[in-house]
């Protein structure tokens, strides 16, 4: 596993479940957590964070089949 993916994996394991989260551009830090996509977007805007990426965490880390 690449070092970047190792950092990302540890970060996601520590992330709250069933939330919207934003990671820093390099995916090394969780920079915002919210109940909705809009809430996280607003937190990012207010903090002036550049180029984060937003993810939705699932209810549990189980395989996804939609």
């Amino acid at each position, binding site marked *: 596993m690449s070092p970047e993916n190792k950092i990302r994996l540890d970060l996601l394991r520590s992330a709250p479940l069933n939330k*919207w989260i934003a990671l820093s551009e390099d995916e090394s830090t969780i920079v915002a957590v919210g109940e909705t996509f809009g809430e996280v977007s607003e937190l990012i805007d207010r903090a002036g964070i550049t180029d*984060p990426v937003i993810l*939705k965490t699932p209810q549990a880390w189980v395989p996804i089949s939609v």
Partner: protein
Amino acid sequence: MKIPYRVFPDQYGSFVYSVRLRVNVALPNPGSPRTRQFEAIIDSGASRCVFHSNIGRFLGLDIESGEKEITQGIGGLADTYLHDISLYIPGGPVTIKAAFKEDLPIAALLGMNGFFEHFVITFDQQALTCELDRVFQA
């Protein structure tokens, strides 16, 4: 462009790989502001692009006012609602008819209609990369 496979935890303390692309969306009207970028799964099993309803509401869409489309997933039938949006992807934005779903466990899926049709896509499980070559049709 080549994008590396991304990791996600699994329930056994190990991990799984997934192919995800950072995208933005906007209303299709010229000059509409884009969302922040979010991660969407590149999913050849999805007939069209599907987004969490939360993202649509953030854009200002009245989700349930869209055309209702019943989809057949592995978990059974589900209601989705269709809306036109701009999807910002490598090579430039496209206007697509996207489905919005309330209880999607992830932010979005990039499916056959609206995404795959614009690329030649190569999944390389050995190199753990996915190559996207944009196709521009005359």
